[in-house]
């Protein structure tokens, strides 16, 4: 059963430049909520953005991962993300 951390790493590894926050919101290891920000989402519809994330997990969605609730956002520019991180 995947952990929230494993799901985060897999999303970030599969979608170039993606930054993900993942929480296991029932604590049961099968209901996850993820917020993903990626430059790759720019110019894509919400449906297409969510599909990019679902595609990382294929048949695991609906199987071991019962639910993966998504919020996606196109990253404005690489510079914004880094300067934001530097300010923290």
């Amino acid at each position, binding site marked *: 059963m995947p952990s929230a951390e494993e799901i985060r790493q897999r999303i970030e590894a599969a979608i170039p430049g993606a930054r993900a926050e993942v929480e296991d919101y029932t604590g049961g290891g099968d209901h996850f909520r993820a917020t993903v920000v990626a430059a790759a989402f720019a110019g894509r519809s*919400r*449906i297409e953005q969510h599909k990019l994330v*679902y595609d990382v997990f294929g*048949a695991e969605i609906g199987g071991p991962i019962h639910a993966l609730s998504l*919020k996606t956002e196109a990253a404005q520019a690489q510079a914004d993300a880094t300067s934001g991180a530097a300010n923290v």
Partner: protein
Amino acid sequence: MSENQTNPIREAISEAISEHETILFMKGTPEAPACGFSARTVAMLQSLQAPFAAVDILPDPRIRQELSAISNWPTIPQLFHKGELIGGCDIVTEMYESGELAEALELEARDAEAIEPEPIVTHSNGFTPIQNRLS
């Protein structure tokens, strides 16, 4: 989709999607949703007084398999309008909160024309033709 082998469930789902302007594939029925995501999606549609047909995917696992093959979307619920996938619970929620959902379902235009609200169509309409082909 001109396969030689006929796939009655897939055909029934495709027909249901094209025959109903707005159709929701869900777990359970609007009256008795069997999953929180389906329940939330129904509640948002009802709060907009959107007329929609609903199909319960639970009675046969093949309904979900074929639906996901058609839509290329892995999760349930799935909301379609005029044959196009609008999204699942997350996208419908975002669109509901931003006001885009009413726009996407063309509810404002309908109100402007002062058409009487249609009754909400439940599973009997969308589901029966699919169920009939399961045996």
